């Protein structure tokens, strides 16, 4: 009788825990829907339109891919500030090769992606083998790449990128939304599969949370970190290609504007879907959550500087929240 009682209490306790974790997981999505609802009421007719959202989904795709790129090294315990600069380098490479030098678009894109791999390897060399902190290394490579971009473009926007790329990214639509959005979904899906359903994903997680534990469990910590840094630079290059395709041009300056929202989204994403962990779906939801807020505020006629303040505030708030989420879990064993 007594055991039965305690068992049922146990089950009740577990149910309470489940509801709590359910709230934690989906709070961000609920807040997102709420914001959409509020803007819908305040801006009747214009905010809640399919055009508005299809534009939002497409234009935020480069930022979303950048946030996804960040999730990988962050999970392995390294920062990568160079993703924004890499996005620009990739877009500009496509522009210069294709529009200026007439290189076929396929080759231009391949060269841009190779640059991604090379930058990832350079970052990894200094971070993993020379053992310099990732923030310092990627801040340095950011500046180098930015300089390179200015040299390549003479600091001016390059137009006239092949229509084939534009068709594949912006003009091609499914359910009224540009293909760009679906690339985000595919990339998020692949990262999710790797993180959750492969031994490699588990190893990345252990490398990020406990390097010494990972090393003594026979995991090649250095190789995992190199792989993650290369993956993030490669995905940033893809983000650059998507950006070039959306604009039909290569803009040598705007890449860095994506950096802060991407970081904010990666950290905010770590408070949702799988709270306490950097995770791809959380990052994607966060990108669109932040973009919805900014779009709505802009439609209300709020001045441009608010955008920067909004993103910066969101980054600090997100890190604070995820710090609490992690701090609670990081109590010492025993």
């Amino acid at each position, binding site marked *: 009788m007594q055991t039965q009682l305690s068992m049922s209490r146990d089950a009740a306790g577990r149910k309470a825990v489940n509801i709590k974790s359910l709230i934690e997981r989906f709070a961000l999505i609920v807040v997102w829907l709420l914001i959409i609802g509020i803007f819908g009421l305040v801006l009747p007719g214009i905010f809640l339109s399919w055009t508005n959202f299809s534009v939002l989904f497409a234009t935020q795709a480069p930022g979303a891919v950048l946030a996804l790129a960040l999730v990988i090294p962050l999970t392995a315990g390294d920062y990568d500030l160079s993703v924004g600069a890499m996005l620009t380098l990739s877009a500009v490479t496509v522009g210069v090769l294709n529009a200026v030098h007439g290189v076929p678009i396929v080759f231009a894109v391949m060269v841009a992606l190779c640059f991604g791999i090379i930058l990832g390897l350079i970052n990894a060399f200094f971070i993993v083998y020379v053992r310099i902190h990732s923030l310092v290394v990627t801040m340095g490579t950011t500046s180098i790449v930015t300089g390179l971009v200015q040299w390549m473009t003479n600091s001016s926007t390059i137009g006239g990128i092949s229509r084939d790329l534009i068709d594949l990214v912006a003009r091609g639509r499914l359910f009224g939304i540009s293909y760009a959005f679906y690339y985000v979904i595919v990339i998020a899906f692949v990262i999710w*599969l790797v993180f*959750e*359903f*492969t*031994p490699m994903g*588990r*190893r990345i*997680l*252990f490398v990020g*949370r*406990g390097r*010494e*534990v990972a*090393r*003594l*469990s*026979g*995991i*090649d910590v250095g190789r995992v970190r190199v792989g993650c840094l290369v993956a993030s630079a490669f995905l940033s290059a893809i983000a650059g290609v998507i950006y070039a395709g959306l604009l039909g041009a290569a803009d040598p300056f705007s890449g860095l504007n994506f950096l802060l929202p991407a970081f904010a989204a990666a950290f905010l994403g770590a408070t949702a879907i799988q709270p*306490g962990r950097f995770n791809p779906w959380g990052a994607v939801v966060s990108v669109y959550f932040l973009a919805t807020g900014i779009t709505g505020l802009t439609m209300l006629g709020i001045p441009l500087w608010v955008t920067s303040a909004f993103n910066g505030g969101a980054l600090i708030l997100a890190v604070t929240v995820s710090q609490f989420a*992690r701090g609670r*879990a*990081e*109590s*010492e*064993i*025993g």
Partner: protein
Amino acid sequence: MMDEKAKVPALKVSAIAKTFGGSKALKGIDFSVLPGEVHGLLGQNGSGKSTFVKVLAGYHPPDPGGSISVFGRPLPLPMKAGAFRDFQMAFVHQHLGLIPSLTVLENMRVASVVARKARIDWRAESRAAQATFDRFGIHFDVKAMTGTLSQTDQALLAIMRAAEDLRREDSRTGGQGLLILDEPTPFLPKEGVDRLFDLVRQVVAHGDSVIFISHDIDEVREITDRATILRDGAVSGTLVTKDASHDNFVEGIIGRRVQRSVTKAQPDRTRKIKVSVRGIEEPGLSVPALDVAEGEILGMTGLLGSGYEKVPYLMFGATPTTTGSLTMSGQTYDLRSMQPKIAVAQKMALLPSDRPKASGVASLSIRENMLLLDLERFIGKFGLNRRAMRQRATEIAEEYEVRPNDPSLDLGQLSGGNAQKVLLAKWLIREPELLMLDEPTQGVDVGTRQQVYGVIRDAADRGSAVICASSDSEQLADLCTRVLIFARGRIVDELTGDQISKDNIAEACYANTTLDVA
């Protein structure tokens, strides 16, 4: 006047007790240190030595009722942390308290550097440091990075700094101070210990008194005038060093007569040798040959600084080495190129003592920690089969009696003992050929300890060779079939069968501290 001062003890301790929770770490101790003497303080782990030092430093408040006076001035108990400086005391702990990335001068003069002065006069600071060096006849380049000095030099620097702190106070109180050296020697080479002792003699010659805390009976016999021995939280005696034999000290520490075993035990040759190590020659560690048999639980122990705890990490490739080889399952591995990755692949297992940092990740779930090494087994058509993983983790947690049995909890939410069961399970589900444990029951509650022992014994019964490095004689006596005693980096004794008991192990540790016993 001079005579009057000589009679006042440097330190007088009366009825100092300290209770933690329900257990008495100090049961009311009394002893005194005479002015100008070097006074040894000895005792096993858990005898109350370090608790006493922490009481003296004001880190632990003692139970009400006792008193401590320094040069006749009673300490206000409980004392504020750091207040010992106002009572002519200075401490040098094993970790020395030097900052390696600062210069010798910055470390030497840290007290006046952090004092609230508008401006630091570096030239005056440098002169002050030189004056200290002159006084002791030991000179260092004041601009050198402290971290580039040898271990010995750093210890000397820390002691000179502490002696200088005493000097700063004595203008008020008349030229005497009490320097407490808390195990400064275990990691120093022999000639380093000699230099340190020369410095201690100089400190005493300048009129100060010294408390020298050590595990090493030979060192205590060399440097001290008298020594107080603690056992189980009480004073077991104060010996006049020149009248006491080595055995007198061991008796005081262990609490019974020394029985010399005449015949050396023969190891059990009936079982098949499973793992052999040859030719480990490191600074501070020399293991020419070591064999572990199938089903054997081999203990390794020794005093602090004896080097036994390094052996498992070298065998596993977790710390780099320049010598040695390991033979297992008919294959020989060069330890120079050994890596944890290779060790894991060869079914070796290592459970480090630093659980939160090296052994398991507190912020990840029990399931994730448990199955980390076994992931390949769960790869199905669609990647990792998470349902099978959940099911397997629950089964394992059931088998190893993990409480609560909910593998989705974070590892950090478990008690120390249950976390240790999870991490043992992590290695044991791979059925290792060689299982190596470093302090396997550190931070494990008494109730769970027996379960942990049971799990280790089961592994041995299934044929694993087990190595258990531990400083806990009782644990080794409960668990091991053979115990190796290390001193100064060498195996100096071996206990088997009936010889294995808590007291015998402790005694062997203390009996073999001399360098040339082999």
